[in-house]
């Protein structure tokens, strides 16, 4: 099986779906010959031309609005928003329009739109180019959210998103673009709402999201040497959310640590923690622990690495939980 990067896997999923769905259109800034800010689109412009791989002006709000307009009138669209921080420009279109339109039109309009955007954490790009804002969107009914952590999942989830009749926010991570896994060349879809157990263990459940996944896996490996068996689970999608797989694991281990790069307050970890209390409170041997980004704006340069959790912070948290 070919081993490819997450960047290549995303490109592959889109290329395959553009062949499969002749109406599928890509919108964004610098996505044409340049291939997107982070070079995810390779050769799509050359292969499908400027009508379908459509470079547009720098206006996130109207770009997403155009995507919605295409989607409600029979043309599925993929909009790339260059940095997740820039979704702030398009919040009305995402939150008030795309997410609610099917509902408030009594089902007359559907919005088959994928909004791709990367988190650019751990790059030192400063307070306006480093945020993990996934929790904001998880708060909005009507919006599906995928957040893969590796190439295999990215391709399978994106193919699902590209066949879904609903708006899907597809959250990538620049930090993960270059990481390789085995990815089948065949057509496969991973349903939204199915968490993946990346590593089995009986002592503690570690739930990790996006770029926190490789950190969590590294921590689990280190702890194995110390005799602590960590079960690592990647939810992979935030809406729908696979509460059951996490709760099952918690019932087995009795302990849970949740880690993500996003800020602590009202982060996804808080929601997961509450769901676990509702589902498996009686099985808890210790309080659920959050290892998250700090509640600070991410500074540029040197200090940025102090903000997001790394392998050692995660491992320390698990050690103290075991004592």
């Amino acid at each position, binding site marked *: 099986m070919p081993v490819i990067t997450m960047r290549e896997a995303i490109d592959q999923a889109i290329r395959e779906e553009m062949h499969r769905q002749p*109406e599928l*259109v890509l919108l964004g800034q610098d996505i044409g010959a340049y291939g997107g800010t982070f070079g995810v689109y390779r050769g799509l412009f050359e292969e499908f031309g400027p*009508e379908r791989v459509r470079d*547009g*002006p720098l*206006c996130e*709000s*109207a*770009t*997403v*609005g*155009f*995507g*919605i*307009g*295409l*989607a*409600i*009138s*029979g*043309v599925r*669209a993929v909009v790339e928003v260059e940095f997740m921080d820039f979704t702030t420009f398009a919040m*009305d*279109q995402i939150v*008030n*329009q795309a997410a609610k*339109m*099917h*509902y*408030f*039109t*009594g*089902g*007359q*309009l*559907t*919005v088959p739109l994928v909004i791709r955007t990367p988190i650019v954490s751990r790059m030192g790009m400063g307070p306006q180019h480093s945020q993990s804002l996934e929790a904001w969107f998880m708060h909005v*009914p*009507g919006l*599906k959210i995928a957040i893969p952590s590796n190439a295999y999942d990215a391709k399978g989830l994106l193919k699902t998103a590209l*066949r*879904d*009749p*609903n708006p899907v926010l597809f959250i990538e991570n620049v930090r993960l673009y270059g990481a390789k896994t085995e990815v089948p060349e065949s057509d496969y879809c991973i349903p939204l709402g199915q968490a993946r157990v990346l590593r089995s263990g009986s002592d503690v459940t570690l739930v990790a999201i996006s770029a926190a996944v490789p950190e969590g896996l590294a921590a689990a490996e280190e702890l194995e040497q110390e005799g602590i068996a960590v079960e690592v689970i990647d939810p992979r999608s935030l809406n729908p959310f696979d509460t059951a797989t996490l709760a099952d694991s918690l019932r087995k281990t009795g302990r849970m640590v949740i880690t993500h790069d996003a800020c602590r307050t009202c982060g996804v970890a808080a929601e997961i923690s509450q769901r676990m209390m509702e589902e498996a409170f009686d099985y808890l041997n210790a309080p659920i622990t959050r290892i998250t980004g700090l509640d600070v704006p991410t500074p540029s340069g040197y200090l940025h690495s102090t903000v997001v959790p790394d392998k050692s912070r995660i491992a320390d948290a698990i050690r103290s939980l075991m004592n």
Partner: protein
Amino acid sequence: MIATTDRTLNSLLGLYNQMVMIRAFEESAIELFAKGLITGSTHPCIGQEAIPVGACSALDPNDLVLATYRGHGAAIAKGSPPKYLMAELLTRTTGCCKGRGGSMHLCDKERGLLGTNAIVAAHIPIAGGVALSSRLRKSRQVVLCFFGDGASCEGEFFETLNMSALWKLPLVFICENNGYAISVPTSKSQATPDIADRARGFGIPAISIDGNDLLEVQARTATAVAHARRGDGPFMIECKTVRWERHSAFSAGRYDNPDEAQRWRKVDPIPRFAKKLLVMGAPPEQLSAEEAAARATIQEAVDFALNSPLPTPESVSEGIYADHGT
């Protein structure tokens, strides 16, 4: 109007009927709101009826319309049956949006109304996307996008002017400039008197017209639609009009100048059009008959809505997501 000589009187009487229907629809909406039967709010377009009726009469049936929360007139003018619209205002299950949207969210996909929208200017780029879709699907549909003077101050308006001009999209911008926000007159919110100037800045042909003259709106829209359908790109028509009522039934109703209401009634588009019809030879009794028929249609719509069931509480979480295959 020279442009009207080749039109049959009957079709013009049909437009008269539509204007009266809209007037009666809005009067009923205000009344139902006062009785507590319409909740939330409702935004009447009384005094502005000539714009949706004139503009939509210049469209082909397949053309598409997006409009604002003050969009009851646009929905009726696009041919959406008033009874389903009124049922929607009363959030009944028989409403065009199953009672989920209410007054500000009307939609009739079958008749080409791709929604009225409650966020000022948000539907403008969506209309741009629909116009791009028309191009990509080679459907030759023209998209008409109604918006108000308030929306012309929002960034998305400018973003869409740029994109639609850049891509030469079949999009006709119809500005319903009624002179007021909730309370602030456009003289205090707009840097220039003509909103059409903004479109010209993007190379889009644009005109400012008397929006209370139905035949003028119709003729100018026909030109704009032909321009867009030919592939010559977007066009903008700024229709100057007046809003008689307060911003919404929920708002307080104070304006700068209390005498304005008197002035507004003098430019009421309905009697103005009636006068023209009489000059063109329409029998007065036929005008009365159209009025009676229009008002009867709206009364039937109100009765239909009031006799329709409210949605059940259990249904509130249905229809958030579309199923595959829809």
